[in-house]
């Protein structure tokens, strides 16, 4: 909330919002300084300030924007209810069903891997309103109140020792029609907006935070007295340059997006550049830290660049798997940007 007051919480928002409308250069400085100062990421607000905000700004109605955006700045938290047990990379295969009854939808089904759902006030929910035609066509995008009757949440224990993502069970949950984003059956397009903000926009902040957090790796080198180890220095120099390149492409992406010349696949390149740099960053720490890293206690609420290198390493998978895995991004780059032909659709066992 202090960041909101000072105008540093949502520098990526447009200028009519407090703290919004900042230039790219200002955003970079804010994020790098937040990381250097060891300021925790606004983990609970991640989905609300990025995913929810972008979706509402681009696809929401005026009424939805007026209702939800100020609440987000006051600290209301959101989660993303897209993935299901049977629909991960193949997101369009979702089965959670919504039926229109009068002025509300009645929703039943199950979501999984929903980050911070146990603390969320609201949910960006993808549901199936029709099973006819191509599977993308029957999808609708809803805004669901997590306190509504019929919603239950079960946190999942994760490998780094905390519970970040959850299962969400939905049993005849009522969602007012006024909380539908876009038209019925047009939710797939809205979901792409959410995902592209996740792939591109968030990475400006995360890349510059990773750059700021290089000082943790430098501290680690000194602590372990490896500052004259040429092998370590070379590895570190390579890492620093890789991180710089990830920042440069995140910058370029935003510049292109603002300039209206974003191309298909650009966000995938940004995401894979970031996720591979993040993995290299954490692996470097695990290596230089030596045996001591194997004794470290798990941390709860894993941020990405904590300096608990084993935890950071495990958390780096969040970016190679979530939001469309590294492999799925490669498919997008190859098929939609480089125009390499798709595989035949049908498949017989």
């Amino acid at each position, binding site marked *: 909330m202090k960041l909101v007051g000072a105008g540093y919480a949502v520098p990526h928002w447009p200028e009519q919002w407090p703290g919004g409308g900042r230039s790219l250069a200002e955003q970079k400085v804010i994020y790098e300084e937040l990381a250097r100062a060891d300021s925790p990421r606004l983990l609970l607000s991640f989905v609300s300030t990025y995913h929810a905000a972008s979706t509402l700004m681009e696809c929401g109605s005026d009424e939805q924007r007026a209702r939800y955006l100020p609440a987000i700045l006051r600290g209301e938290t959101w989660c993303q209810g897209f993935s299901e047990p049977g629909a991960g990379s193949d997101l369009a295969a979702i089965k959670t069903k919504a039926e229109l009854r009068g002025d509300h939808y009645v929703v039943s089904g199950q979501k999984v891997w929903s980050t911070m759902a146990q603390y969320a006030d609201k949910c960006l929910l993808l549901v199936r309103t029709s099973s006819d035609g191509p599977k993308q066509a029957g999808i609708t995008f809803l805004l669901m109140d997590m306190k509504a009757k019929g919603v239950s949440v079960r946190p999942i224990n994760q490998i780094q020792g905390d519970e970040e993502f959850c299962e969400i069970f939905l049993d005849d949950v009522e969602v007012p029609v006024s909380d539908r984003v876009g038209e019925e059956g047009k939710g797939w397009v809205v979901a792409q907006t959410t995902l592209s903000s996740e792939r591109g926009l968030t990475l400006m902040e995360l890349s510059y935070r990773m750059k700021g957090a*290089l*000082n943790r790796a*430098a501290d680690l*080198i*000194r602590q372990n007295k490896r*500052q004259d180890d*040429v092998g*370590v*220095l*070379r*590895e*570190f*120099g*390579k890492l*620093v*340059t*890789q991180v*710089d*390149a*990830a920042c*440069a*492409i995140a*910058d*370029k992406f935003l510049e292109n997006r603002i300039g209206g010349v974003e191309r298909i696949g650009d966000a*995938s*390149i940004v995401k*894979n*550049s970031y996720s591979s740099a993040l993995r290299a960053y954490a692996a470097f720490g695990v290596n230089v830290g030596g045996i001591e890293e194997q004794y470290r206690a798990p941390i709860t609420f894993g941020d990405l660049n904590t300096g608990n290198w084993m935890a950071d390493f495990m958390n780096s998978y969040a970016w190679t798997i979530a939001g469309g895995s590294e*492999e799925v*991004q*490669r*498919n997008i*780059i*190859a*098929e939609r*940007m*480089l*125009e*390499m*032909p*798709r*595989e035949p659709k049908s498949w017989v066992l």
Partner: protein
Amino acid sequence: MIELAELHDSAQKAFPADKLMPERDTSWALAAEMGWLMIELPEDQGGLGLTRQAAAAIHYELGKVLSSAPLIPAMLALRGIAGAADFAARDEWIERICCGEYVPLNMLPARIEAGADGKSNGTVPGLFDADMASHVLVGCGGAYHLVPLDAPGVRLVERKLWDQSRRVFDLVLEEARLDANTLVADGALAASLHDDIARSAHLFLAADSLGGATAALEMTIDFLKMRKQFDRPLAMFQALKHRCADLKTQVVAAEALLWSRATGAEQVSVTDLGAMKALATDVYRRVTEEMIQLHGGIGLTDEHPCHQFMKRAMLNLQLCGGLDHWREAAGRAALRQ
């Protein structure tokens, strides 16, 4: 920005993508005629007064076609001479170079020993296309000398390269005179010139490399789309798609770093630019290694251009400091911050 797009454009028109390794002497004449040699030279010295970024844009395009014209060493030498305020023959040489005379700067470190009698012995490697030159600019031991190739005790030896797109020479000095007559700059001025030249060298080599990487990757993808095995284009195989997608990601990210460091390069440290060059040349090498593998047998034939890209990439890796050198330097610099 419009200026830059125009430069990319005119370079592509002058050196079309389908003509790799265009003949050296006509390429050189064309580049000189286009005014590219003096692109960075301030307008009051008769140049175009454009930025380093603009020069890098030209090298990016020339890298795509594996240009044989030694524009990079020429621009670096001009930068050195133009910046040498105390050099008496400066203006004369600026004019000669702008009119198309070729003077290269050595792109590899020189090893010279100066004897007590004022005579020097040693070798200056990395002089590209010195057969075209009457003089070469030698940077060594904190000084720059403009050495006439017909001076006593001076001899050129061609070093045969794997890279067929370029030619390189050693200058062998045997009791040669590097003295006040050849001196262009020394002391503090030479030190600041060295940094200034190094900044350009790294940008230009990175641009050449990423232009080459872009062209090599595009050719590879075109080949995979065209070549059929198992009744389908090879490009349909995901194992190959993913390798192409990774290469694309690496090329695009390295390019983003190149252009971000090219703007306002004066404020970027030489080490940061060297590390950027290391990344760019490493990406170039990776793309060309994969290019050969993904072409299969045809990629190993002399007739096919795959190997030309790979050989140029391998040479670029060695110029102006290699991977190990710049990675270590970047590591040390980041540790000091």
